[in-house]
Each structure stands twice: as C-alpha cells, then as structure tokens.
C-alpha cells in the first residue's frame, strides 16, 4: 500500500517530463550553469558488449570499480532479484546523464523502463519525500521519477538533482549549461554515444568531446574554447602529418605544428624550458612557422628505469643567426639552472663549428636542483642547426639519441608536401608509453619518497590503461571565435 502511495506521489509530478534532447550534447540542457562536468552515455548496454571495447574493459573496470561498489551493487541486485550485470544494463544502459558540481555534489538522470521503476518501488520500499522525491534509505540515495527519466542524487545533497529535475520538467536553455560560451559549438555536433563536457578553468566556457566506436578503435571529436595548454593551438603553416609519423617511430609521442607565440604557460614543458633560457623578440622573429616535438625515452643502466627525453625542432629563417642566438640561450639556461641548484656553472667550452652538435652537461646541476630525481640523471642539453624538410631547423634535445633521430627524420622529410588540414598533428604509442611508465613502479620510492605506495598504484593503473591502446593520433585546428577543434583516433589493442 505504502509502495503504491509512493509511486503515485512520484508520478504525480511527471506530466510535463521531457528528455534532455537527442541532439549532440543535449545533456547540457538538463545541467544548471554552475555544473562542472556533464557525462552522457547513450546505449551503454550495447557499448559494454561491443567487442571493440574489450581491450579497454579491464583497465576501465580497474579505474572505476571498487570493492565497496561491487558489494553494494551486488546486494542491490539481490534486493531486486536480478544479476548485477543485468541491473547495470537496465538501470544505466539506455541513456544516462551524470552531472557534477565542483563541490562534489552529483546527480544522475537515467532513462529506464517503467517496469524497473515499479520494481524499485516495490522491492526497495522508498519513503516518500517532498517534491515528488523518494528516499532509498539503504542506498542513501534520493530518486525522482519523471517518466521515462529517473533522477538519482545523494540523500542530503539533492540541490543539484532538484535543479536538473527542474530543467527536465521545464526546459530552459538560458538557465542551463547550454547558455555558457562555446557550448553552442558542442551543441552543433552530431550526437555521439559518449559525450563529456566540462567547464574550462578560464572564462567559464565549456569544452568537451564526443566519442564514437569504429572498427578496432574510437574516434573522439574535441571542441572547446582555446585556453591554456594543452587546450591551445597555434595556427600557421598546415601541420605535416608525414613528419609527425616519421618522428613518432621510436618515440612515445611526436607532434608537428606551429610554434606558440602567445602568452607562455608555465604548465607547458616547452614553454617552461624556453623561458628558463630567456627568449627575446629577436629570437622569436627568427623562428619560422613550423615546429616539431618528440618525447622519447632512455634507460638508466643502473636501475632499468625508463626516463623521458624531450626534443624540440624550430624552423628558423636565418640558420647562422639562429645558431648564435641558441648558443646564447643555452648559456643563459645553464647559468639559471646552476643558480637553481646552488652550484657554479660549468666552465664555458669553445664554441663548436657551424652545424656541429652543442652539448651542455646539465645533469649534475639538475640532480642537485631536483633532489636526485631519476628524471634528472643523465639529462643534458644538445643543440644543433640542420637543414631538412625544405628549411633550416634548430634542434634542442635532452639526449643525443633524440637529437640525432629528429635530425634524421627532418632530413628525410619531403618539405611539407604531405600536409594535413590541421594546425597540429600528433601521434602517441600506447605500448611504448605503458612499458615506459611501468618501469617506474619498482622504483616508486625514488620518485615519490613520501608516498611510494600511492604513486606505485597510480603508475600501475596508468600503465594498464596505456597498454590497452595501440596508438593515438590527433589533428587539431584553430576554429572560429577563439575555439579549437580536434579529432583523435584511438587504435585499441587486441583483446
């Protein structure tokens, strides 16, 4: 009897229920403007069973499945007289929208069969609450039934859920996340099975991506307001996809694009390194319209730890001037690093001849400056001016092998003949990244002396995620009105 009353109370407020729209990023229409994150998964039950995603299944389960959740989910399924997997498909497998505020308050809107709702009421016997809501005491959840949508929120913190339900009942574009800057760019996309949107740190704009399955992988379309690194792209000469692919061989990551001439971002490793040596206007004026970046690796012989290496190549207009400018930059960088380390800079060497490799022994200073962090061991600075790909280039690298490999790839490149319709293209090798990161695990205390176990667990999870991905390739363009647009192809490994 009480169940029936609760069901009636819940359904009473359902007359004007409307879905959050079937258009791309329609989930934004049921999220209030102060929401931080919106994730929508359409037809999750098919996605879960799609063989394409099998390689990711284990890693994602490790990422999002806890013992507490497993126990709770199992008992909830028992209460409803169904299997845990079947409950997952019935409760969240049709169309589910997750909304979260920065405070951690969250809500889920999920499209379910009215029969499941009737079972929930009948078996879990929720208590009726104000506003057409019902409280599931054992689950500490509050639900509101607006057929066919079931709203779920944490009991005691239902403000966000109520706001979402209000938008569900009375659609109000201006009162939702759709009204935020750059949201229209997202909303113009065709619907994707998985859509993720978030408030970008600067300007209250919205960025997001939609992911679709394709044979042996995923295609992810990224849209958002251009902001701080990595959500920025310099538009200039079209990126050379062939060069990026050539550089990617033997690398963890390689990109080809244009140098960033805007405000430097300390969070961007390249910006930080350039600023460490000081870049003046004359140096920037001598830099051309193309650049390439490589992240490689080397192995510490004493421990087997794999250490990332970094290489950057700038196209330069005047090679002879560039070589002198970058010699000066290297000297300033050395002096600054020595100052940070509290040691005397090494004695200056005679300047090598034109086109020869410059080497600066930074490692002792970096070891002192970074408290003997493994990354600092054997990390030096190598610089070289070369000709290749129809232009002159200035190379900077943290080891000789990376410097040589970049020089080889640039000399063999065809002068930007195979350009992509993008401002930046890049490639990442998942298998190599997984092997690289996994090598840190046995030496966790050398990386994070204060919390080695937590670091080791994070490393294991990152390696597990990376090893399920064969290769990632991306293309990014600067869009209209200060936005960026990108496509990311994720090739998944064999199951």
């Amino acid at each position, binding site marked *: 009897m009480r169940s029936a009353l609760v069901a009636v109370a819940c359904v009473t407020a359902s007359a004007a229920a409307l879905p959050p729209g079937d258009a791309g990023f329609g989930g934004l229409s049921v999220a209030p403007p102060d929401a931080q994150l919106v994730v929508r998964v359409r037809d999750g039950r098919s996605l879960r069973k799609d063989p394409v995603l099998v390689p990711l299944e284990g890693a994602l389960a*490790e*990422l*999002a499945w*806890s013992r*507490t*959740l497993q*126990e*709770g*989910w199992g*008992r*909830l399924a028992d209460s409803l007289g169904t299997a845990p997997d079947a409950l997952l498909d019935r409760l969240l497998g049709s169309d589910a929208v*997750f909304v*979260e505020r920065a405070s951690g308050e*969250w809500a889920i809107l999920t499209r379910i069969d009215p029969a499941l709702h009737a079972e929930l009421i009948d078996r879990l016997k929720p208590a009726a609450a104000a506003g057409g809501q019902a409280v599931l*005491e*054992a*689950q*500490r*959840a509050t639900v509101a039934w607006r057929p066919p949508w079931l709203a*779920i929120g*944490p009991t005691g913190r239902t403000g966000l859920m109520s706001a979402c339900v209000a938008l569900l009942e009375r659609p109000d574009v201006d009162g939702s996340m759709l009204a935020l800057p750059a949201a229209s760019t997202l909303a113009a996309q065709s619907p994707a099975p998985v859509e993720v949107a978030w408030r970008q740190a600067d300007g209250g704009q919205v960025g997001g991506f939609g992911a679709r399955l394709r044979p042996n992988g995923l295609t992810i379309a990224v849209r958002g307001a251009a902001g701080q690194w990595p959500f920025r792209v310099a538009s200039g000469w079209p990126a050379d996809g062939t060069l990026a692919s050539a550089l990617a061989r033997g690398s963890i990551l390689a990109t080809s694009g244009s140098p960033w001439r805007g*405000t*430097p971002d*300390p969070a961007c490793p390249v910006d930080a390194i350039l*600023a460490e040596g*000081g*870049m*003046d206007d*004359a140096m920037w004026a001598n830099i051309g319209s193309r650049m390439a970046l490589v992240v490689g690796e080397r192995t510490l012989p004493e421990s087997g730890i794999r250490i990332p290496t970094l290489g950057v190549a700038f196209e330069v207009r005047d090679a002879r001037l560039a070589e002198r*400018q*970058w*010699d*000066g*930059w290297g*000297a*300033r960088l050395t*002096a*600054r690093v*020595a*100052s*940070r380390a*509290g040691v005397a*800079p090494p004695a*200056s060497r005679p300047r090598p001849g034109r086109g020869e490799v410059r080497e600066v022994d930074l490692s002792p200073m970096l070891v002192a*400056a*970074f*408290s003997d*962090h493994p990354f*600092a061991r054997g990390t030096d600075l190598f610089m070289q001016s070369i000709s290749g790909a129809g232009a002159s280039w200035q190379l900077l690298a943290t080891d000789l092998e990376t410097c040589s490999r970049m020089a080889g790839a640039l000399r063999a490149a065809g002068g930007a003949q195979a350009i992509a319709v993008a401002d930046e293209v890049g490639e990442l090798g998942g298998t190599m990244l997984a092997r690289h990161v996994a090598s840190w695990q046995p030496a*966790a205390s050398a*990386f*994070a002396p204060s919390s080695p176990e*937590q*670091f080791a*667990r*994070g*490393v294991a*999870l*990152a390696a597990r*995620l990376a090893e399920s991905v064969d290769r990632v390739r991306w293309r990014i363009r600067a869009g209209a009105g200060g936005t960026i647009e990108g496509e990311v192809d994720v090739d998944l490994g064999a199951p």
Partner: protein
Amino acid sequence: MPHEAGAPDVTEAVMSRLGYARASDPSAARRLRVRRRALRVAQAGVLLAGCALGVAWWASSRPAPAQPPVADALRGSVSGGVELLGSLRLGMPRAKDASGVQAADAATPASAGPATSPAGGARPF
C-alpha cells in the same frame, strides 16, 4: 418505588465492588479526588515513559543499512580511480627553491650571442 430503610443498598454494594469509595463527608470526598488525580498523573507518566523507551529501543535496534550506499560508491569509485591516476604527479620532479635566478641572469656570459638577457626582452610568464 421508594427505597425501604431496612433493605440493602444494591447500588452502593455494586459501586463498592467496582472499587469506588463513598465519601461520607466533604473532606473525605476532596481527598478521594486528589488521590484520583495523582493516580491519573502517574498513569500518564508511565505511558509517556513507555513511549519514550519504545522509541529509543526502535532507534537503537533498527537494522543498519544492509548494503553499502551504492549511489555514492558509484561516483566515489570513478573519482577514486581518477585521483589514483592523479597520484602520478606525486612522483614528478620538483625544483628546489628558485632563489638566485636574477643573479644568474646577471651572470650571463658576455659571449652568449646577440640575444638580449631574459630580464630585457624576454617574455615573462
């Protein structure tokens, strides 16, 4: 029919068997009323105490939630996994105190080339 003086008073006998006392004078009647009032107060107190005890027992002996809160666990598991990935930051290199950077700029070798010193035309963060 009028009551005969010699016949027994049936009403009084029944009332007496039911526990009613007959006050023979006004002061006795007052005492009886006070006693009844005190009895009712005591009965009400016992009733209220019983209710309170019952509520307390129900609250303490009510079964605890039989299952972990699924809804919070669902969200907590995902954010926990993301936080675990974020713990990679714990192992990233951190520079010691960067004091003395300006002195290093001043000490830039004169042979460094045509570029100006960072303190001059360099783009600041």
